[in-house]
Each structure stands twice: as structure tokens, then as C-alpha cells.
């Protein structure tokens, strides 16, 4: 491919791509993100190719495989442009009908439309679906418009124009100022002002500087970085290039989780394409700016999401953090000044440069500007990836976008911010999604995970879950995190197994306080948050575990026993076959019983019984 080495050539290429598209009378957009792939969208894609071939439509109908559209629960998702018809749960069997009816005859296949669960009405376009309507999608909206493996698609929607503007119209100082003015704060969890970080790195002494994209999204329950990197890798690259120009870096790194194979593949393709076009390399677009990017795969360590640990890992070492008395903007990767930002932070940069900081800052709350991508999961109807203006109340997210409860059980809490965050009860749902407001309430926005929990969730068990996670992931370098988390887990285990006492609650609080004041890295300092926040809002659950030796949600294994209700048991034998431990006895036409000596309390029988005959005591 010919190099695009001037701004004019970039514009000409864009026009050529757009002209080429005029021949298409329709575009079938199909989601090929990890979520829809798990729902077998790959089979749908090959079926579409076959069907378009059969009808000789290859020249007039465009097929675009894109990244995540967000509404993963309804996948595989399909949108047919130009009318933006929205089909959900598309299977390979539906494809021939879609082509013969919708593509060839403009007819709608009604059974594939989304049904509004409240009104029961069929909805034709994405923008009318409540899940999408209540959102404010800027970054995610682009996912639908680009095939992540096509740089042409990205250029067609105005991609790399912000880079061109930066290189020829704005000085590095002004880029930093623009980012400062926008009020952009780090989207990875810390919420540190991005402009200030860039400014310090720009002013740091040294000729050799680096930019890093942190795509080591280790937070369980969060996947926004995966979707952005997987769905629109060029947007992240463009953001990194603008940042590199601003701080004076010549080399960038993308550190991406190896558990995200599709993201790794797409960013690799994107870097290759950008190099081929000359958008990475020497004298980009004919300017004095030279920059290249390398991809590094993470080794599956949660602690590597911490900036200094990530840098150690990039150097090929064990991912342990170091004290930050000298910041990484001065002494970072290979002891050079380094700017590290999260995927979503980088993805926000091109639009700020292109449209101006004031437009970005017009959205959001006082201290948190712009929009935030959230991963809405757990016990709500509509799970998926969403984007809302900062400052949107949690209630809007959970009930308007999430559609409320999924299985009739009342919602009890929402967990935000992953293992560093906390659990907020329903009466706090008027709080806005805002860095400072959630911090004050004892949780945090973090990277944007929002796990909704209902009455079937035990909050003590949730605290135990996070402590187990953190104990497993603690790198072990500093004592407060290594031993402190261990001791907290020991105490919580006592409580969930019926050996707890009331003094242990104050011990937990004291330990939590000590860890947060003395741990080495940010992840250690926040390790006690899940315990402290559940103690703050759900103390009565701890007390029931201690005093009555009962788990109100019926989750903590040591405090419950399973039994079969003879009134409801139909002797069908399903539970008996399902039990992996052979703990259920009973012949045909004989009421079944659970042998408590053999029962491991795994709960599998309860999920298989269709007659609600398995009861928890």
C-alpha cells in the first residue's frame, strides 16, 4: 500500500474510501466481539458470506464484522444499514431469510427484532431500545462503524485527522493544555488528571521518553478495555500518538492481557496496518514526528495493572511494584520518563483534540468530565457494556439501562470498582457515577465494573471472594498486603464457617485501616475496601453470621444444609443423576433423600430440580 506521508494524501485516501462505498446499497454489520463470538456469531458470518455469494450480492452489499456493540446479552447482534435495522439473537438459520427478505425486498423479519420487555412492543432500531436510549455513547458508538481489522474503516470515519491536526496545527505544549482544560481523568481506576501527568512527563529531563497503554484489565467483572481495544484499536493508537507527540516520546508499548486473544490479535493487525501506511514509523505524515509501538502480552498477574509493576513486567521481570517516591513520569520504564494511561483514557484523546476540550468538558459532573464506559453485569436484565455521561446516577444505570431485576429477587447492592472498590446498598443508588462521590461513599468508579447483586448474594461471601482473589494475586513484596490480607481472609473465613465472634469485626476494621495506610502500591492500599464497605453498609449480615450462625442468603456452605422437601419431590431422579458426589439416594417412585455425610454442599442438585424440592436449611 502506498505510504500516506502528507495530510493531503490522508484526506485523498479518505475520499477514495468513501467514494468506493457508494456502490453499496446496504451494509450488514455483525458483531464479532468476544461476547457475540461465544454466542456463535462466527457461524452467522460464514453463512452471510455464503448467502451473499449465492445471490451475487458481493458487489452491492457490504459485510462488516465489528467489535462489541455492548448489548452482549442479546447476541449475536446484527445491524443493517442504511436503515439501521436492529436484529438480535441471530442464528445461522436466519441468514437466508434476512438476505431474501430484508436485503432484497426491504421487508423486516419481525421475530428477530428486539421486544421491549415492559411494553411488549417490537423495536426496529438500536436508538429506540431503552438499553441504548438512556446511554450517551461516544467511544462505544464508533465500534459499530469500524471493522477493527480495517484501517480504511477507521480513516473513513475521520480517523487520524486529529493526529494530523496535532502535528501541523498544535504545539506539544498546547496539546497538554487542551487535555488539562478538558478535565480528563484516568479511566483505569486512579482517576488522576491526565493533563497533569502529561505535563510532568513533558517537563521531565531526558531525550528518551515512553508512552504505555495499560490494557492489563485484571479487574474481575470489567471488560471495557477489552472491547475498546478489540473493537477500535486504531482509536487507541491515535490517542497514544497524540500523547507521544505532546510529551516527546518516540516509542510506545501496549501491555495487553493474554486472556484477551482477540484484543491481542486486533491491536497487532492495527499496528501492522499503521506501519504499512506510514502512520507509524519515521516522519509521520511528513512531519518531524517519529513514533512506533510494540505489543507486549501480560502474564496473567492482577498486580501488573499497577503502573510500576507493569513497567517491571515490560522489562521482562517479575511484576512487583516499587515505591513511587519518584513518579514514573520522571523515572519509569528503563528509568526514563514514562506516561502510562489506560485504554479508555487514550481512546478519549482524539475527540478532545478534534472537537476541542470545551465540548468534552461540557459533559459530566463538576470533578469528573466526559463519559465513562461501564461493564454492567450480575443480576440485572440487560447486561452488557454501556457508556454514560459522568455524573449519571447509579439508579439510572441499574434500572433504566439495566432494566432492573433479572429473576424476581430484589436488588440488594452494586459492587463498583472491582477488588479495590466496594459495595453500595440500594439506598445509595442516587449517588452519581463520579470519581469523588463514589470515593466518599467508600467505593470507587475504578475501571468501571458494576456488578449488581440481589438477595441471593451474601455480602460476607462477597467480601471473602475478593479477599481470596487478593490473597491469590498479592505479589508478596510488602508485608501489609501479603500478611494483612491473609489474616483478614482468615477472620472472614471464621465468620462464614460459624466460628466468628464480635471482637473480630473491630479487628477487621483495624487491620483494614493499617493495610490502607501502609501497603506499598495502590492495589494493596485499597485491598481492604470490599470488607470495609460491606461492614459499613451490611453489618447486620456479619452479625447474623456470628450470632445466629446463619447465612441469610443461603450461600456460606458451612452454615447451611440441603434437604429434600418430601411434599414437592416427584421422585424424578434428576438430582440423583446430577449429584457429582453420589450423595442422593432414592429408587424410582421413592422420595429422594440427601446423605449429609456424603453431601459436599455444592448446590448442584438445587439448580437441577425443576420442582423446587431442594431446600436450604
Amino acid at each position, binding site marked *: 500500500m502506498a505510504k500516506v506521508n502528507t495530510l493531503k494524501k490522508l484526506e485523498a485516501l479518505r475520499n477514495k474510501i468513501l467514494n468506493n462505498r457508494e456502490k453499496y446499497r446496504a451494509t450488514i454489520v455483525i458483531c464479532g466481539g468476544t461476547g457475540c463470538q461465544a454466542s456463535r456469531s462466527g457461524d452467522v458470518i460464514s453463512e452471510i458470506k455464503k448467502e451473499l455469494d449465492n445471490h451475487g450480492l458481493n458487489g452491492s452489499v457490504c459485510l462488516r464484522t465489528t467489535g462489541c456493540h455492548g448489548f452482549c446479552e442479546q447476541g449475536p447482534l446484527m445491524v443493517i444499514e442504511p436503515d439501521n435495522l436492529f436484529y438480535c439473537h441471530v442464528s445461522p438459520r436466519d441468514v437466508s431469510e434476512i438476505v431474501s427478505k430484508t436485503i432484497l425486498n426491504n421487508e423486516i423479519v419481525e421475530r428477530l427484532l428486539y421486544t421491549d420487555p415492559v411494553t411488549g412492543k417490537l423495536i426496529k432500531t438500536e436508538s429506540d431500545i431503552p438499553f441504548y436510549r438512556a446511554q450517551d455513547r461516544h467511544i462505544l458508538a464508533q465500534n459499530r462503524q469500524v471493522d477493527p481489522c480495517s484501517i480504511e474503516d477507521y480513516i473513513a470515519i475521520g480517523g487520524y485527522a486529529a493526529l494530523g491536526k496535532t502535528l501541523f496545527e498544535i504545539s506539544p505544549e498546547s496539546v497538554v493544555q487542551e487535555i488539562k482544560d478538558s478535565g480528563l481523568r484516568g479511566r483505569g481506576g486512579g482517576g488522576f488528571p491526565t493533563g497533569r501527568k502529561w505535563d510532568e512527563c513533558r517537563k521531565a529531563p531526558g531525550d528518551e521518553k515512553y508512552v504505555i497503554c495499560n490494557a492489563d484489565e485484571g479487574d474481575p*467483572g470489567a471488560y471495557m478495555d477489552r472491547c475498546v481495544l478489540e473493537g477500535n484499536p486504531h482509536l487507541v493508537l491515535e490517542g497514544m500518538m497524540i500523547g507521544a507527540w505532546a510529551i516527546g516520546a518516540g516509542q510506545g508499548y501496549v501491555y495487553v492481557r493474554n486472556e484477551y*486473544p482477540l484484543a491481542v490479535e486486533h491491536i497487532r493487525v492495527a499496528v501492522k496496518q499503521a506501519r504499512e501506511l506510514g502512520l507509524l514509523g519515521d516522519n509521520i505524515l511528513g512531519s518531524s514526528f517519529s513514533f512506533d509501538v510494540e505489543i507486549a502480552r501480560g502474564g496473567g498477574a492482577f498486580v501488573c495493572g499497577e503502573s510500576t509493576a507493569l513497567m517491571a513486567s515490560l522489562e521482562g521481570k517479575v511484576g512487583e511494584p516499587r515505591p513511587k517516591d519518584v513518579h514514573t513520569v520522571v523515572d519509569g520504564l528503563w528509568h526514563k520518563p514514562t506516561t502510562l494511561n489506560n485504554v479508555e483514557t487514550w481512546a478519549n484523546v482524539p475527540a478532545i483534540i478534534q472537537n476541542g476540550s470545551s465540548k468534552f468538558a461540557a459533559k459530566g459532573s463538576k470533578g469528573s468530565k466526559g463519559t465513562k464506559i461501564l461493564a*454492567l453485569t450480575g443480576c440485572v436484565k440487560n447486561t452488557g457494556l454501556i457508556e454514560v455521561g459522568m455524573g449519571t446516577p447509579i439508579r439510572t444505570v441499574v434500572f433504566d439501562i439495566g432494566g432492573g431485576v433479572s429473576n424476581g429477587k430484589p436488588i440488594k447492592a452494586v459492587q463498583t470498582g472491582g477488588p479495590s472498590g466496594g459495595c453500595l446498598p440500594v439506598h445509595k443508588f442516587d449517588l452519581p457515577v463520579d470519581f469523588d462521590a463514589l470515593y466518599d461513599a467508600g467505593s470507587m468508579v475504578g475501571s468501571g465494573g458494576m456488578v449488581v447483586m440481589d438477595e441471593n448474594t451474601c455480602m460476607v461471601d462477597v467480601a471473602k471472594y475478593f479477599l481470596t482473589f487478593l490473597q491469590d494475586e498479592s505479589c508478596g513484596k510488602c508485608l501489609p498486603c501479603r500478611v494483612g490480607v491473609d489474616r483478614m481472609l482468615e477472620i472472614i473465613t471464621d465468620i462464614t464457617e460459624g466460628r466468628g465472634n464480635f471482637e473480630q469485626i473491630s479487628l477487621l476494621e483495624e487491620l483494614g485501616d493499617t493495610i490502607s495506610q501502609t501497603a506499598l502500591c495502590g492495589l494493596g492500599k485499597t485491598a481492604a475496601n470490599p470488607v470495609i464497605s460491606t461492614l459499613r453498609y451490611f453489618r447486620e449480615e456479619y452479625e447474623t453470621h456470628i450470632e445466629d450462625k446463619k447465612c441469610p442468603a443461603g450461600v456460606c456452605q458451612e452454615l447451611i444444609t440441603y434437604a429434600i422437601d418430601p411434599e414437592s419431590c416427584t421422585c424424578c431422579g434428576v438430582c440423583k443423576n446430577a449429584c457429582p458426589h453420589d450423595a442422593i439416594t432414592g429408587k424410582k417412585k421413592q422420595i429422594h433423600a440427601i446423605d449429609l455425610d456424603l453431601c459436599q454442599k455444592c448446590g448442584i442438585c438445587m439448580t437441577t430440580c425443576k420442582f423446587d424440592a431442594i431446600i436450604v436449611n
Partner: protein
Amino acid sequence: MESNNLDPILEGRRSQPHQLIEVLQDIQEQHGYISEESMVTVSKELGMPLMEVYSVASFYKAFSLKPRGKNVITICTGTACHVRGAKLNLNQATGQLGVTPGEVTDDGLFTIENVNCLGACALAPVVTENGSCHNHMTPSKLRKLIRSLQKRGTEDISNG
């Protein structure tokens, strides 16, 4: 393992200790685990102490120092999967196969692993079988999946 086997992986990375993790990733991917022999080779070729290679290989979760089963079943135990019953799936797999996570079954057919998050949280609970992702997993679906893999495994053995 002969050092020759690692040549394609080491190509262009020799004497560059910072490439260690990338090299180990590729070995893990192609050979299924990091053997002692391959660590010795890597240490020589990248020009770094064996102790450092071992400390990195044992630090990161992505690397297995023991061979794994023919089928790797990975159960996601991220928060979203946890609140939707990931534990049941883990109990099903370990109960059915009689192994704890990380172990290989006696017949060498299975390894059960748990992972902290696969990033498909909206489709929780999620289980991957040899890299392919299954959403909304239930204990009974998992039982059938494991049975079908067991059947395929014994057929392979009898077909020799």
C-alpha cells in the same frame, strides 16, 4: 526438549532479557507448559541467570510448569460469574473428575483451571473448553460437555 525446538521462538529475541515474558508466552502456547529444559535453554539464549527465568515463569499465572491435560477446561470465577453461580460449575467439574484446579486427571485427559476474568461478564457464567467459549454455563451443561470429551478421549485411545 532439544534447544532446536525453541529456535523459531527465540529467533530475533536472543540476548534480549526483556523479551523473556514474550518468549515464555510462546513456549507455553506451543508446548503447553514450560519445562525445566526449556528454561535452561531460554536462560542461555537470552543471556540471563536461570534463577531469574524461573522466578518469572513461576510468578505469572499464564505459565504452567507441569504438563497439562489433553483438554483444558477453564472456569471463569470473576465477580460477575461468581454472583451467577461460577462456584457450581467449579464444583461440578472438580466433583465429576475428582481433581482439584490445576491438577491433571489420572488418564491425562483433563485439567481444570480457574481464571479470574475472561471479560465476557455479560454472558456469565462462562467456561472455556480448549479455548472455545461457552456462555451461560450450568452444571448440567458442563456435565454433558465433560462426558462428550471423555467419550471422544476413550475413542481416540481405542482407535490407537
